[in-house]
């Protein structure tokens, strides 16, 4: 038997992989949790697409400022050393490869690192992409955080995405509740997995073909 990581545990693991001094953008949803687990001995600078570098935590209720919000329009703060800038500069930062890491949620990731995370392709629903496509192509590394499987058990790590794409060949690494998987030129490589899981089980929950590192680390 194996257990699955909670959302907070996934976030903690991702946070541990972010090096001191990194410039990072955290997408809406699951990625936002990463901010709560950044090791206190590292300086990690968070960027927000709406023109903030050095985004800090949620303020106490009495210090909320509705002109200082994050990409999800939630109140945030500015850390010492932070700066404000306009949207064209903000997306130049993203698109121009200046961010070390972008962390996004995902609906599907393909064996070649394609990402689908912005639309379920339902007819009649207005398309809404926000900054996802800019982040996907721009950051030096793109980490995807997501549940390994859909609620009905279906695979989210697939040979080819069936949902509308966000970007082609953009994903660097996938963090799920049961594994950490690198996207390599040779395909998907499992580097970490939860204790007690067999390769067969992990593969059976993954549509794309997996390779396994010589000695995968325990994910916990």
């Amino acid at each position, binding site marked *: 038997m194996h257990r699955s990581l909670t959302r907070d545990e996934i976030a903690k693991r991702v946070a541990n992989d972010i090096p001191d001094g990194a410039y990072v953008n955290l997408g809406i949803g699951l990625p936002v949790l990463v901010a709560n687990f950044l090791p206190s001995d590292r300086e990690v600078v968070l960027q927000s697409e709406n*023109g903030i570098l050095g985004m800090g935590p949620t303020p106490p209720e009495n210090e909320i400022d509705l002109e200082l*919000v994050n990409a999800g*329009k939630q109140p945030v703060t500015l850390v010492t050393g932070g700066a404000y800038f*306009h949207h064209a500069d903000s997306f130049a930062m993203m698109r121009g490869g200046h961010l070390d890491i972008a962390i996004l949620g995902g609906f599907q990731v393909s064996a070649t690192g394609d990402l689908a995370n912005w639309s379920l392709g339902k007819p009649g629903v207005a*398309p*809404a*992409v*926000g900054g996802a496509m800019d982040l996907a192509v721009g950051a030096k590394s793109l980490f995807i955080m997501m549940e390994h499987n859909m609620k009905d058990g279906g695979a989210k790590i697939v040979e080819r995405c069936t949902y509308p794409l966000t970007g*082609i060949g953009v994903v660097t690494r996938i963090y799920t509740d049961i594994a950490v998987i690198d996207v390599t030129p040779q395909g998907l490589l499992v580097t970490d997995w939860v204790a007690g899981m067999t390769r067969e089980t992990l593969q059976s929950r993954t549509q794309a073909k997996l390779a396994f590192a010589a000695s995968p680390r325990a994910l916990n």
Partner: protein
Amino acid sequence: MINKIVNSLAEAVAGIHDGATVLLSGFGGAGMPTELIHALIDQGARELTVVNNNAGNGETGLAALLKAGRVRKMVCSFPKSSNSYVFEGLYREGKVELECVPQGTMAERMRAAGAGLGGFYTPTAYGTQLAEGKETREINGRQYVFELPLKGDFALVKAERADRWGNLIYRKAARNFGPVMCMAAATTIVQVREIVELGRLDPESIVTPGIFVKRVVGVATPQLSS
């Protein structure tokens, strides 16, 4: 003497014609020129193309403009929010058109308009639905999508402080689309919390130089809409 200060919101939005493309600053509530939008509703222009990152929330500001039936088309990156039911209803009924543009491409298209460029190649959206039908090109081994400038007939922008020359500074993350929209419109109209004497804004810290601004109106205690 240059004096871009006008005395009323009505004067500020005068002349916006039916069919105009109107750029609206703001990202969610931060930077939304609520009072200028309400003045535009009173002013009566119809068949507008409106550019904003979102498509309104609740029933004030942009949502009120949509509800009043003045918008033919929205250009935005994320027409969804907690209470964007006005837009969603109109969209479902086919009463408003939507052009969904990746957020960075939207900002860059307006900058290109303001900077007099004919268009540019961006890697964003290559190979996705949002680039369908668009020209693509490989440059130095990477794939790009061709994008055209996005020019406004008018921009309605919220800033923090202005002088009579139209020099502007913004406040915190309410800056967002303001500076590029000021550049990208033929006529830029700005509401500010405070109007100060010429010379009171630090020349090193002015974000939008007055050359990009046509009219300024003071709104000391703006209402929040998004």
